[in-house]
């Protein structure tokens, strides 16, 4: 069973490596460096302005630590077929799960350590903590995460009480109690509490698991969701066949469509606009890129850097929108409807113009707020306007025409 997990893990890591290579392409690394730099600079500026003894400093630390404690899920790598093929091996699955927990542990604890490393300077400045105290808190956090993962492991079995204990409310409460005691009382208490919790869960689970059935359905669903989350992330950068995206009705956004009159020439604008808003794939991409761009621009000062970054993000959004044109090629009616291809292209250009203009406007507002300089604001607006016009009206039709020709 341990072998099985090892094999799966190898396959899984190979797959992840394949995608990670695609994710960390030059472009993204570039953007990421900027982003990290911006954040780092902002963080150190904030640290410099902090005075010790602020009442909200421990609250911030509590929030960060409790949220981070929930990051890092139990990665079982279980597959749907397992509940048929591995059912006879139910008892032996325990070794598999233990191996899975060890792997999850490694990933999750890396996150915890990195977080505490970043938070350490905040703790020492805002709370005047010594290195020893911070280290103790770090150990408490790691033990806490260990017990949370133990609960996840326990939830793979049908223990009645366990189900209640594994509810997210319980996990959050445990984290809050442990971390809060560490921040307001002393980290030593937190460490003791975490150790007690971890030990209690471990002993209790050891006594119970042998008499319990595995909750296959739930575990498979959890693992599927976990993988889907990972694939979704990769899907931001490259095509992932496992992700088809989901559709949400989003009735509250229906007002967006009122401007589109039911005219023959706008048949595809009717479709594209709804597809864009209700599908999570492309709309998520646009929203995420816009939000990241806005955050980044908020921290960036200077004459030319904001202009350059705003232009970069508009280009990224516009570029990623292109494949949406082919979104409906699989639907036979896209070819059967008596609508001229020109109308379809025009509709798409209109949609791209609308989306890019909105994104450009939002980015521009952030630039204005962050810089409060007439010149920068003016130049950004001008550059953005030209770029949106060029991307939507010239570049998009050209690229799509070329893609069309290649296919034929």
């Amino acid at each position: 069973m341990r072998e099985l997990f090892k094999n799966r893990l190898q396959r899984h890591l190979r797959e992840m490596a394949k995608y990670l290579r695609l994710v960390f392409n030059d472009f993204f690394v570039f953007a990421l460096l900027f982003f990290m730099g911006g954040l780092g600079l902002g963080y150190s500026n904030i640290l410099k302005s902090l005075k010790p003894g602020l009442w909200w400093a421990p609250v911030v630390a509590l929030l960060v630590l409790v949220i981070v404690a929930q990051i890092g899920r139990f990665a079982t790598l279980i597959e749907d077929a397992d509940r048929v093929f591995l059912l006879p091996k139910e008892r032996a699955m325990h070794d598999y799960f233990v191996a899975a927990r060890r792997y999850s542990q490694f990933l999750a604890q890396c996150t915890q350590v990195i977080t505490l490393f970043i938070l350490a300077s905040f703790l020492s400045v805002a709370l005047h903590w010594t290195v020893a105290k911070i280290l103790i808190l770090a150990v408490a956090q790691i033990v806490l995460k260990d017990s949370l993962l133990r609960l996840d492991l326990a939830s793979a079995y049908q223990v009645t009480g366990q189900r209640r204990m594994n509810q997210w409310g319980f996990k959050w409460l445990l984290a809050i109690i442990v971390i809060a005691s560490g921040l307001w009382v002393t980290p030593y208490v937190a460490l003791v509490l975490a150790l007690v919790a971890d030990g209690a869960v471990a002993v209790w689970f050891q006594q119970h698991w042998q008499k319990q059935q595995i909750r296959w359905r739930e575990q498979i669903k959890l693992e599927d969701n976990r993988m889907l989350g990972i694939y979704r992330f990769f899907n931001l950068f490259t095509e992932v066949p496992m992700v088809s995206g989901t559709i949400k009705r989003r009735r509250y956004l229906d007002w967006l469509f009122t401007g589109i009159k039911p005219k023959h020439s706008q048949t595809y604008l009717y479709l594209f606009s709804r597809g864009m808003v209700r599908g999570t794939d492309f709309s998520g991409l646009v929203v995420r890129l816009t939000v990241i761009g806005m955050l980044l621009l908020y921290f960036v000062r200077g004459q030319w850097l904001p202009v350059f970054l705003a232009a970069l993000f508009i280009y990224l959004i516009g570029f990623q929108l292109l494949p949406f044109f082919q979104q409906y090629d699989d639907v036979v009616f896209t070819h059967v409807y008596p609508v001229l291809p020109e109308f379809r292209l025009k509709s798409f250009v209109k949609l791209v113009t609308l989306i890019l203009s909105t994104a450009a406007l939002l980015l521009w507002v952030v630039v204005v707020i962050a810089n409060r300089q007439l010149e920068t604001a003016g130049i950004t607006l001008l550059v953005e306007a030209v770029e949106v016009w060029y991307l939507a009206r010239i570049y998009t039709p050209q690229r799509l025409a070329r893609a069309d020709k290649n296919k034929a």
Partner: protein
Amino acid sequence: MALEVSHVVGGYSQIPVLKDISFDVKDGELVGLIGLNGAGKSTTINHVIGLLTPHKGKISLNGVTIDQDSQAYKQQIAYIPETPVLYQELTLREHLEMTMMAYDLDQEKAWVTAHKLLKTFRLDNKLDWFPANFSKGMKQKVMIVCAFLTQAKLFIIDEPFLGLDPLAVNDLLNLIEARKKTGASILMSTHVLDTAQRYCDRFVLLHDGQVKTEGTLSELQAALPEAGESLNDIYLSMTKVDRA
């Protein structure tokens, strides 16, 4: 002469699936396209709706080919696919509205027709649902409603009887009958031979990418006198000849 398919050679790749096919569908006529799996029925339909381009030969609809004027050609066609195809992000109401926009129909008049059709197929209370989540039969009904919303001159229906409940089959046949009376033509592929025998005016029997025979039931019976009375018998004997 509504649809005229003459000497079409075609298929998905360079290897032709259809080997020199010719047949026609006249105004107000229901023609059944009959053949085994892989005989070339769907390929024929894909050529007619313009999804595939023939290597050789010509397909014209009331004198227009798709190359001459794709807009005028497509305007005359309504298509009901075998497997229902829907836009995931559109509600039922929006599917209907989109069809109206695509065929440039008068919205008010079209909605009157639409409500009648929706009522017939018991979909009138599901206008704001995503049909993508419907059962297969209900999705098929959505396809039927969208197609019969148009004023198409040629309806192309790919295997309509599998998946529909008996009531809906009956309603569909009534709709087809009514459209025939107004002069529309229908090309329908199916495996449900006894229904086809009762309703189709003529048959095109496809086999191995060729038109084996074509004609009314009595013409088929005359051509293969020893085969038997029903379309089913004729069809079976035709495939047997080939297997021997």
